């Protein structure tokens, strides 16, 4: 499965705490026209470099699925930001 939600809690100072749950499906939908263009470019590249386009598509999808569980946490002083893909 591709990542479905990006969780972004932001702690700023003592009292300010914001936690965002960003559903990624609308983002995928918004980006889908770009994805079609990107796939056309990749198809041309696959033909030029003699790479099986289905294998390339599978590898790209695997890369997207593998992003699930990725997490970055940055803390500086009292400010803390965490980005987590689930």
């Amino acid at each position, binding site marked *: 499965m591709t990542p479905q939600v990006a969780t972004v809690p932001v702690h700023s100072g003592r009292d300010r705490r914001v936690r965002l749950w960003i559903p990624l499906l609308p983002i995928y939908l918004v980006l889908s026209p770009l994805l079609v263009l990107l796939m056309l470019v990749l198809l041309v590249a696959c033909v030029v*470099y*003699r*790479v*099986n386009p289905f*294998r*390339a598509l*599978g*590898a*790209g999808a*695997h*890369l997207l*699925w*593998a*992003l*699930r*569980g*990725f*997490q*970055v*946490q*940055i*803390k*500086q*002083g009292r400010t803390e930001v965490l980005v987590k893909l689930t």
Partner: protein
Amino acid sequence: MNEQRKQILEMLAEGKITADEAERLIAALERSVDESPAEGEARRKAPKYLRVLVDERAEGEQARVNVRIPLQLLRAGVRLASLIPPSALNQANDQLARSGVPIDLTQLKPEHIEDLIEHLADMSIEVEEATANVHVFCE
């Protein structure tokens, strides 16, 4: 001699099974004894994430970066790299060798990645300086 092997030999002596059947049973018994602990250990040790922790202390203020990268990304990256044409891989090899990193990317095969990931479980890199610590490990 363990109990199960003894039972097989007793069955052979009593004529309940043939010599071929006894041999097959003993071979199966040895396989199960050899494989079970190793498989269990491999399953237990296979890490899922690469962790990079950076702690910095500068002028009384502490900064921390904590990155968790799924090792599935490594698998996906190797699968993607297997699509790169050999001529491009040779060029990359030349550049890596020129930079002092003699790695042959053409030898990096998806079927070898599981062994690599399994051995990453034992990896732990710690770099300590006066103002910063870096710790890279797998979990």
